């Protein structure tokens, strides 16, 4: 198994939502943010605008998997992504409530859960993100990369007053 993980850098996200477009195209054949495995939440508090992408974070102890009453959620043996057995899934939403990120949803038709499957190991959102806000990295790399990015942003801001 490849021990890689998704790294989301909120500071880099500009909120263009290209990830939602290409994810839904790749995984459902239509352009539909509501069915995208990655979603971007936008806040506009008092003249500011903040965008937060979120998706399955591949928890090591996955609450969605533990809570599923029919055992429909398993791990992809190669990528470690959560796979949903649509024959077993009864669309009960237990996983939706259990997920700490809101990264799993129910598709009303045909009434089963869906979440990120890492596109079989080459995530489309990562390929298309114009700002490298979403990366697919060695799990050990994630925190140090994020730390570096934060530091770079801090230094840029301190020098120029401008965020990247």
């Amino acid at each position, binding site marked *: 198994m490849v021990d890689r993980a998704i790294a989301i850098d909120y500071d880099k996200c*500009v909120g263009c939502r290209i990830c939602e477009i290409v994810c839904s195209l790749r995984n459902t*054949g*239509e352009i539909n943010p*509501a069915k995208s495995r990655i979603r971007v939440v936008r806040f506009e508090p008092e*003249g500011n605008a903040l965008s937060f992408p979120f998706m399955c974070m591949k928890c090591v102890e996955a609450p969605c998997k533990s809570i599923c009453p029919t055992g429909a959620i398993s791990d992809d043996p190669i990528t470690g992504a959560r796979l949903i057995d649509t024959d077993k899934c009864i669309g009960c939403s237990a996983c939706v409530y259990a997920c700490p990120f809101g990264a799993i949803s129910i598709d009303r038709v045909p009434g089963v859960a869906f979440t990120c499957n890492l596109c079989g190991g080459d995530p489309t959102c990562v390929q*298309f993100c*114009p700002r490298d806000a979403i990366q697919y990295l060695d799990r050990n790399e994630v925190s140090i990369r994020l730390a570096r990015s934060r530091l770079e942003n801090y230094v840029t801001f301190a020098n120029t007053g*401008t965020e*990247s």
Partner: protein
Amino acid sequence: MMPFLYAGTILKIDLSTGEISRIPITPYTECFLGGSGVNIKLFYDHIHPGGDPLSPENVLVFGVGPFGASGISGSRTEVTAKSPETKLLGSTNFGGFFASELKFAGYDHIIVSGKSKTPVYLWIDNELVEIRDASSLWGADTYQAPELIRSEIGQPDAKIVCIGPAGENLVRFASVQHEMGHGGGRTGLGTVMGSKNLKAIAVHGTKGLRLANSAIFLDLATQAKNLVESDPRNKLLSRSGVTPGLDDQNEFWLGISVTDVPNGVDPRANPPKTQAIPQKFSHKRAGCYGCPVQCMEHYLEDEVTKGVISCELYSVFVQQVRCHDSAASLQSAILCQKYGLDAVSTGGMITWLMHLYEQGIITDKDTDGIPMEWGNGQSMIKIIEKIAHREGIGDILAEGIVKASAEIGRGSEAYVYEVKNMIVFDHLHPGWSPYVKAACLAAAVGPRGDNIRSLSSWSAVSRHSSLRDGIEEVAGRKVDSEPDSYEGKPELVIAAEDLITIADMLSVCKWQVGIYTPHLLAQLFSAGSGIPTSLEDLFNYAKRIRTMERAYEACEGHMSDQDTLPKSFFNNPIKRGIWKGGVLEPDRFEEMKRRYYTLRGWDPDTGIPTEETLRTMGLAYVAEDLKAHGKSQREILRNGSAGSEVSHGGSRNCN
């Protein structure tokens, strides 16, 4: 069967009766493609020529084309109505997040007709469509209103277009604003919203858009992404926004004399830099749905300067008015958005006042004590506030520049740069444009009286223009080869107009259409729609739209003689700089126009589409309308009586 890439439904709202209806888009997409295409057809079918743009009879059409939610840069919304500024076809176009949301809610177009008795806003949440009371929102600025609406309807993800106080007060050049930084300014369509008592449209959608072949589309989208992201001009836009390009352009133009300087101190000797703003104030990048470029700046500084700006909002309030006060420039730009004012017309108005003040034509007494010397930032802010609220001098200016100059008189008319009653972009100026023949032609024949449709003058001088590649590909000639020559310019203008029309019908950004290349756009459209569409097909759609626009204007009585420029552009040689001596000769200009009309299949004398052209384009019914309507409308205009007795064609299929 709903066509691919379309949401499938046109929403019709009659604000007089409160009636809400839905019609399928299918019959419209055979002859007209997407945003500006179906928009012009819907507008043509519903408008009664001869009417007052601010009467309930005017129709306001919002439209989104096939790529409005597809991640092909843009997500542009096209807005069409009769313009209160030009009394001809009004059209404007804005980016952001509204276009995609409308598609996801299940609608491609919205037609708003009639007039509500009290202020209202529309709330569209998938199938739910409501006309809701907006009396508590009336007076709110365009940054406040979306927040108020979102909290009232309890949907934080709703996307909103709205008008500000200027639109409510029927300032003739009010804009349609969409959240922070996005807006359709030109031709005063926010005023049309105001005249209908329509404060806002809020949309939320959770549906999907079907594609004929998503795998091929995604492959092509990868190519498109590589083209867009590797383009050096886009790298600059992504990193530094539009300001370096604007400064380049300004520097070029400063080499060319505009007016003689009476007191010997040239205020342009030390030109203000647009780049000073992003360099001075903290900001982050912003932009539209599905676009990797993110060309806008989101300023975060403080209450006054918090907002998003790009493009004309910069150049107008920095270079055009020669303002070195960065904070005041930024504040002026953001105030225009908040009040819902077209920055080009507002800035043009301020520039005009400064020009008059310099020439001694007006004094503080005419402007309620506001000194209109060049570059006075505080004066700009005060004038903007006065226009939006129609206070004092603002009430005169709010009626548009032609009426304002008639009111002020004293020779102020000579400093008015307008085409078809609308202030033109600073790109078009008697101080340099007479050298760029294509720009003059484009501005004169275009439906809106500005040359944004062709951008020829800009393309000719700016190395940052991405549009020129596309224009050159289509026209088969260099944009900047001999700009002073009259030769080949009608062909160039047609290529530019058609290319821009393709962008507007597909809902792609005008700045990116040349980089994506029209060829790749045709392939993407073919894959997405399942309808094999060649580049030539796309151009035929564009040509039909252009002719339809013209036919409508002919129904309004518009004739060739209105396709002109202010007197100061003719027989007035450029005085200084590398374009010194450049002059626009009326005879040669008329020759260019005749050739343009002929190439478009329009009558070379009148500029009206010929019956043969209309029939070839599948617009035989338009030819019938023109026979009945255009002629009588011209009679009415000539005889000076108002109103029209002739009934209009009504809704019919294209064939």
